[in-house]
């Protein structure tokens, strides 16, 4: 009798633990991630880092990321003045650069060298208990006709919506694209702040993962600031 009662209590506790550990995303969820346009052509990675770090209350400016990764190039932190004619495209990044940059600014993160499944997209973005409650820094890679990677671009996924109706099944992702940049040249060939930059975009999960010769193949998520 005592043994049966003990087993029953143990089972109940086990089930409580099981259910309390589950992430059960709602059909839609999103994060209020500010859209920071990239200041240079090749700073998408720095701009999305700024978006995500700002979301966690420890904003890392794009020029600070670029200075860390590239060793303080001249005129980097001057907003839209200075080295605009170069457009900054010597200041791109690699996946390792992005990893090191997060670590340098006292963030831990999860990196997958792949897209996230739709289930993981929901679990990652959902703000429900036991979900990851995290925006996603997603990297698209473009491929040429020979199947070689040509260049990458980073965007920040901020939300999702799962539509399940009798006549419609649709999985949507919402994202902040840091391009186009918010610096431009005026009629006098001087660098200046453009009226605006960046873009809000939505797409089906299927087309976000692959569209034409562009594929989602790297993901950073589950960020945590560990510094002071």
């Amino acid at each position: 009798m005592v043994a049966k009662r003990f087993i029953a209590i143990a089972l109940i506790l086990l089930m409580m633990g099981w259910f309390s550990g589950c992430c059960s995303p709602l059909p839609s969820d999103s994060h209020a991630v500010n859209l920071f346009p990239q200041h240079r052509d090749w700073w998408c990675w720095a701009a999305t880092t700024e978006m995500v770090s700002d979301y966690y209350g420890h904003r890392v400016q794009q020029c600070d990321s670029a200075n860390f990764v590239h060793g303080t190039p001249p005129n980097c932190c001057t907003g839209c003045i200075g080295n605009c004619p170069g457009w900054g495209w010597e200041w791109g990044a690699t996946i390792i650069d992005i990893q090191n940059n997060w670590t340098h600014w006292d963030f831990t993160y999860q990196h997958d060298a792949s897209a996230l499944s739709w289930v993981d997209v929901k679990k990652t973005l959902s703000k429900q208990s036991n979900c990851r409650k995290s925006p996603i820094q997603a990297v698209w890679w473009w491929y040429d006709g020979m199947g070689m990677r040509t260049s990458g671009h980073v965007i920040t996924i901020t939300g999702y919506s799962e539509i399940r109706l009798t006549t419609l099944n649709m999985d949507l992702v919402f994202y902040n694209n840091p391009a186009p940049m918010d610096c431009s040249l005026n009629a006098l060939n001087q660098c200046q702040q453009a009226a605006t930059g960046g873009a809000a975009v939505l797409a089906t999960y299927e087309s976000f993962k692959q569209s034409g010769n562009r594929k989602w193949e790297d993901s950073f998520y589950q960020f945590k600031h560990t510094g002071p």
Partner: protein
Amino acid sequence: MNRAKSTAIMMGALILSFLIFPMGGSSADQMADPKEAIRISNEALANYIQYGLTEKNAAAFGFKNLEDAKAAHIGQPYPVRIIDLSAVKDYQPGSGAKKMLRDPGIMWFPVMVGDTFRTKIEMVRIDDQWKPGEFGDTLKAKEVWAVGTQTKAIAEAKGMRDGYTSYIVHAPSLLATFFYLQSDDKEFLIPAMVNPERYGMDNGKVYSADEALRILKRFAKDIKPGTIR
């Protein structure tokens, strides 16, 4: 939007497709079935607006408000072509753009309210079927749209009256977008991008394909493959 209005717009778009695709090139590789892409784009637009837009985010997608978005319809679509970074790097002056163009299976549709451009929606060919792609990205789309409205007049001015091919051409690694016009003996690239000044170009200005590709090649040589920007 009521059903009658929606049907009228869809019929209009279908008629438009018959008018533009012979003009804009009608080869089989251009698209599997333009009517299907247009039909799906109408459905996709309605679904995106109904399930993706809110009063709060409508402005970020180029609309005045949610009511404005509900009045949206698609306009004249354009097929998209890609130019690879490696192709630009290897470009031989005088060899032209035609053989560099790759079909990524993307159709670009302007989203209009009345006669006014709001944003764009893309249809993507996946497993040989047209499916909804990106919706939004309004700043870049505005530049494309603005130049797109001029291409017919440009083609006529260049003596391309007897039919010509027209594509939107992206060079993703160079962040460059053009309209491409081609007839038997002529090829032109017309910049339609944000910040064309990075290449010393002007949006809407007509460049021979060779001239534009020579300029891009100068910049492409410094871009390392596999870099994230």
